[in-house]
Each structure stands twice: as C-alpha cells, then as structure tokens.
C-alpha cells in the first residue's frame, strides 16, 4: 500500500475504524498518497453535534486516535459520514491539512453497483444472511442480483441513499423509516444486513458489529 504506515490506537472507536478504512482506500490514489506523505502536524475530523472525533498525526507514522484535541485543522462531517461543506477550522493557517481533510471526507461518490458488490461480499455467508440480494436503482430502474438463492432480499432506492446505506454511512433501518429506501425481506434480515453494512464501514477488525 502506498503512503505512510498507519497506527491506530488500542481499542479504537467506530469512527477511528471507519476513517482508517476510508484512509486505506484513499491511499490507493497516488495523488492522495503523495499529499499525505508531505504533511506534518495534526488534523481532525469531528462529527457534527457529537463528541465523536478522530485526529490524525502526521510523522514517520500516521497515527489515528479518537478525539480532536490539539488538531491544527478540523473538518466536520454530517449525518451521512461526509464533510458537511462548511468551513474547515484552521484552513487559513494550514491549507494543506484542510485540503487533505477535504479529500478524505469528501471523496467521489462510489458507483452504486460497486457499493452493492462490496456490500454483498460482507454479507454473503454470514449467519442469518439471505442467500441472495437484489439491489434496484430507482432512478434508472437498473438492478443487480447477487447470490444464487431463490429468494432475494431486496433493496430499492435512488443512488445517493442507496450508496450511503450500502457503505454503512446511513443506518439501513433509519433510511427505511424515512422512506429513502424500500426493503423486502424479514425483520431478522435487517439485523444481519445492518451488520454487513457496518463491516463495510468499519473495515477489518470490526468484529461482528
């Protein structure tokens, strides 16, 4: 993997795990990796209206720990786990850190088919998982089916909420409450699907959560 070696605190918080997973993926982009390698200091990501925060300290190692204390630049992310578009604190003094934070927290949206395939990878074979999954893009009426089972769990939505759910950035059940997605399957499968979404979001080492 290009870029610096990443060290995460013991017993990391969910946001530390999520941003580590995001970081690892972003570092596959040579431009982002190069930018990361040039940085010094400390940057942070904070969740709006919450104590949840993560700070990145740049040096020989890129350390990722919970909390935003001591950060020179801080970006706030909103409900969908993306930069909220408001000013990044400390940007004037540390424009490179701000640029890096923006790149980390506002990456290009992943295509829905790619998100669906990743989601299925994290769902298939888990206890209680459906034997097939049907994902329908309501904007284009395109559909993707995964697995060979005769009965598929179905998720129908427009691309933006669909990707947010499949990436674990928006809780599946909340999106269903809000009628942003439509689902067909059993109640118990919602639990198992929610676990898969979290594994996508939190990456390796996230257990069965």
């Amino acid at each position, binding site marked *: 993997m290009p870029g610096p070696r990443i060290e995460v605190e013991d*017993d990391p*918080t*969910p*946001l530390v795990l999520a941003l580590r997973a995001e970081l690892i993926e972003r570092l596959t982009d040579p431009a982002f990796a190069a930018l990361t390698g040039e940085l010094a200091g400390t940057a942070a990501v904070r969740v709006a209206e*919450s*104590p*949840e925060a993560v700070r990145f300290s740049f040096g020989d190692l890129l350390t990722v720990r*919970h*909390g935003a204390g001591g950060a020179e630049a801080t970006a706030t992310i909103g409900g969908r786990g993306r930069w909220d578009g408001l000013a990044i604190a400390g940007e004037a003094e540390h424009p490179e850190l701000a640029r890096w934070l923006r790149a980390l927290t506002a990456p290009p949206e992943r295509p829905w088919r790619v998100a669906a395939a990743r989601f299925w990878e994290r769902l298939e074979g*888990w*206890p*209680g998982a459906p034997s097939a999954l049907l994902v329908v893009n309501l904007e284009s009426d395109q559909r993707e089916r995964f697995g060979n089972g005769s009965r598929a769990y179905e998720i129908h939505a427009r691309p933006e909420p669909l990707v947010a759910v499949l990436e674990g950035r928006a*809780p*599946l*059940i909340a999106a269903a409450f809000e009628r942003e997605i439509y689902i067909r399957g*059993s*109640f*118990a499968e*919602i*639990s*198992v699907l*929610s*676990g898969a979404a*979290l594994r996508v979001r939190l990456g390796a080492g996230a*257990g*069965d*959560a």
Partner: protein
Amino acid sequence: MPERTQLGAWISENGISSIRLEATNHDGLVLGKYLSAEKFLGAAERGVQIADTAFGVDLSGDVALGWDWGDWRGEVTDITAVPDLETLTVDPSFPGLGSVICDFATGDGRPVPICGRSMLKRLISRLADHGLSAIVAPEIEFSAFEEPIQTARERNYRGLTPLGGPARITYLLSRSGDFNELMSRAAERLTELGVEWESWSSETAAGQAEINIAPTDPLSAADHVIRTKLALREVADELGHSVTFMALADEHLGASMHVNLSLLDGDRNPFFAESGRPEDAPVLRHWIAGLLATMPAAMSLFSPTVNSYRRLVEIAGPPTTVTWGDENKSTAVRTVTRSPGSARIEHRLPAVDCNPYLALSAILAGGLIGMEEELEPPAPFTEMAWGLEPDAAPRIPDSITTAADALEADERLTALLGAEAVEYWLGSRRWEWLTFHRSGGDPDSVSDFELARYFEHL
C-alpha cells in the same frame, strides 16, 4: 408458595386483585405486565405472550441490530413469560398486588437462549450432576440522592446531592437521618417481599450504600438482586429521593456487585480444608483455576455497558488483574477459608449494573470448567494486585469491546453458556458500543448519553 391448584385460594386469602409479572431481559431490564387475578390463573399454566422485542430493543428503546437473532425471533413474534410460582409473593406495600418472577420461553416452549434465568437454572442443574449445590450471597452497591427522580431527570442526572451528606467514609454511622430512613424502609420492604438480607451499611462514596443479601441458592440470589433493585427504587420514590445502580455515575461513585459463593456436598463445604489453607481444598483450587481461566471472557457478562468499565481504576476501584489471593481484596477472586461454615470465594469483578442471572451463570460456568477439567490455579497473589507494572499479572479486559472479543475467543465458556446465547450477547454488546459512540457517548468522561440511558433502569 401455593401449588398451581391452590392459586385461586391463595389469591382469595390474600385479597389479590392484580399480579405483577417480573422478567429480566439480557440487558438486565426488568420487564413485565400487571395481570388481573383472573387472567393470572390462566397465565400461571400457559404463561403470557410478550413480543420478542423484549430482547430486540436496546436500553434507549431503539431496535438493536447487527447480528443473527436466531430462529426464535421473527416478524415481531410472540415469546412467552412463564411465571415461576416458587417466586410468587404478596407485596404488602401495594395492597392487593402480588408479584411473580418469570422465565422467557420461545413460541414453541424452549427456553429463550439468552434468557439469563433459564441459563442459570441449566448451570445449577449441571452442578447438581456433580452432587454439588452452590450458596450465593451478593453484595449490592448503589447510590442515593436527596432529589426525587423527576428533579434528577430535569438536571440530566447531574449535580445531584448525595443522600446522607458529603462524607466519603465506609461504614459511617453518622449519616443524616434521610439516609437511614431510606435504608431502614428498604430493609423492611425486602423482608416483606421475602428477600432475606443480612446487613446494610454506608459505602465509600457520598450517598453510597451496600446491602448484603443473605446466602441462598444461586437462582434465588439473582431473583433477590432483581427485587432489591426494584424495591430500592420504589422506596426512594415514596420518600422523594432517587437511587441509581449505574456502575459509575460520576467519578466518585463506582458500584460493584461482589458475589460470595460456597459449595455444599451434602452437608460438607468442599471449599474448606482442615489446614485452613485454600490450596489444600482440591475443589476450591479447581474452581479458582476455572474462574481465572474464564475471567477475561466472563468480564463481558460482569460488565455489560461502556459505563461498567469506567470503575476499573487502580486502588480506588475493583481488581484489575486476573489474580486470586487468600484474604486479599485487591485480587479478583478472594478466598476466605478459615472455617467450614464460612469458607467461600468472593468474586470481586461484577459491576452492579450487570444482569445477575448472567453474571452468576458465568461464575458457575467458570467453576464448573475448572472442576470438570481439574484445572490448577497459579500461586495466590500475596501482595497488592493494584498498581502493578503491565506484565506482572494478566490484565482484565478494560472495555466492552475487548471483553466481548475475549468471550468470543473462549470456546469453553461459550459451550457452557450456550453458543446461541453467546452470539446474541456479543451482538448486543457490539451494538451497545456502537450506539454509545454514535449517540453522544464520550470515551473520556461520563456522558449525558450514559446518564440518560442507564441511571433509571439498570
């Protein structure tokens, strides 16, 4: 307790008009219904239907998600609360009210895998297969405040006044009368309910007390913990005060549920050796070894919430290492073995916010593993087991996630507790962790989220 066929007469003789069913879910929440006396007569036979959401929502009432629920849950299907008539009692503080403790059964009549009371019964039975029975005496610590619960809510459970004054002195008798009134009334109420208690005293933190339940069988001991917590809340409410069983409501209020346990082999206590030395009692040695071997995993059941782990501080908190010692309260398992009548272990790890059925199940399972595998313990720890350098003794898991990981890795304990139960428990603990962080929990200090979630109901 009345036989099923005598229930009608019992209801009539005691002037019972309603019965409160009391059933404890995995989180330790006491759930139930009030039934008319007539309805109860039928329910005593068949049980009462309750939605499976009794095990499906978290401590804030949100749907808990992320794991395989098992085949006993469905599209908000019904499970059954089955009254245990051995626990049926009159509640003199509420004329006309009886109460009964229930087990949870699935729709087809099996015990719900994660029903702690059913799990505990199964382990007691396994112990009986060895010709042994256990005697358990829990110690319940809690904190009381001058303000009523309504005021506590208005203040987000912060800035409350410790009942009985600000002194932080254990056994202190000169606390003000309001403290003594609460405890005396609570003790009376426990006696009325058939909960035998041995003593109560002032504890280390301001407003903190401990009540010691009299030795009894493990199932009754856990039932008594549940009823003691309910009774204390009810008495505090009557007197215009509030109490909490949070493990750490603020930095001075760590609260545990120490568990004293001995065994009986007929009339003989196998934890006693004539020498008075614990090492000379083989059954005790094996139990200690089993408890230590399963301790990291069992910690998940001893400390169920993120808040539970906040009390793990050196010297001022519970033990922090996987150690045992004779008459050594700094170790996780203390032995007291001077006389056959009192030879016992004191397990010093459970937090008071634990589900007592699950915590006692973990203790029995650990002891059974040690005994069945004839495990041998390390040497007793003879120094203070707090404040040690990192490698001096194995550390107890210090977070909800590391304890869950330890439980997931412990195949022996999982086998005894039941694989389905452990899977459900692990899923619910990881949900608790996730919800804590995503809902405003602060890893570094007691947060409003914790106070709102735990103060009133655990």
